[in-house]
């Protein structure tokens, strides 16, 4: 894996076009106000304060959502049943992000994983323990919640996910 992300343009048959003036315009997203109702997440936030995990279950298709979802699209109903979730889970999918450290300019490769808690049917993007080598990340890797010291009832109470030992026999096979 090359350390530096340098652009290397590849030649192609290019045609030149007359260059005409341009008229400036802009789209100010700062003039917008996004409105969301996340009051349905209050029970989860209370539980996070006590370092407990709960998911919201749709009573008609039994899918469990973590973080909670306001409407279950499959059944067009608002899920209303809270279900306890364990602190273990798996990596549903991941990608490697290239983070350029502003001071040193050195490029750091960090895995970003979509973590799926055991008992939940959805995954959400989060981080692994910083000292896990990105080469060791693989799909299906078992992970465990690493709680932040003080929890204020937000998703950041789960600081990151540690990796637990994978007892599966075909472990070597599954790593690419």
């Amino acid at each position, binding site marked *: 894996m090359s350390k530096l992300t340098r652009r290397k343009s590849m030649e192609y048959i290019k045609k030149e076009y007359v260059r005409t*003036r*341009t*008229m400036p*315009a*802009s789209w100010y*997203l*700062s003039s917008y106000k*996004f409105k969301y*109702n996340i*009051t349905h997440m209050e029970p989860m936030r209370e539980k996070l304060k006590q370092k407990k995990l709960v998911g919201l279950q749709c009573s008609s298709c039994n899918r469990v959502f973590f973080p909670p979802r306001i409407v279950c699209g499959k059944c067009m109903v608002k899920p209303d049943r809270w279900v306890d979730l364990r602190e273990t889970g798996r990596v549903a999918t991941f990608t490697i992000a290239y983070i350029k450290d502003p001071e040193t300019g050195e490029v750091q490769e960090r895995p970003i994983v979509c973590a799926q808690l055991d008992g939940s049917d959805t995954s959400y993007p989060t981080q692994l323990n910083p000292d896990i080598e990105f080469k060791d990340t693989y799909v299906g890797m078992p992970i465990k919640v690493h709680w932040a010291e003080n929890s204020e009832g937000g998703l950041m109470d789960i600081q990151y996910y540690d990796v637990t030992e994978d007892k599966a026999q075909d472990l070597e096979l599954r790593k690419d």
Partner: protein
Amino acid sequence: MTEEKIVVANKGIIRAEFAFWVGQYMDKFYDALENKKIVGNKCPKCGDVFVPPRKICGKCNETIPLDQNWVDLPDTGILKNYTITYYKINDRASRKVKKPQIIGMVQIDGSSTSIVYRLLNIEPGEVKIGMKVKVNWEEATKGDPSDIKGFSKA
């Protein structure tokens, strides 16, 4: 509908910038504006003259070739319509202002459409449809629509 406070996420931060290519027809128009001249182009089939110039005449769907049918036009015209507005708008927001602005639709002499510009040094009372107006040029022109500061009484 729940009574509790709705989370109003904070405002968007990123801003998207755009730069619209004007095309070769408008490029010629802005070159002319830069020398304080107004040009339009003429549809070979129906004879309509367009300010600003267009590649295709909407009435007869006729393509007007880039290198033909250009027409030099005077910088005088007739006021066809006007409105007095108290709003200022830009790409970011719109607000109401105390001082109104008169905006007019001016048909340049010799053209068959009209363009929308503000009217300068004219009192709201004096404005009448059909009155003669002429271009009030910026001193330093840049080759864009703001070269025409506005229209004032001819």
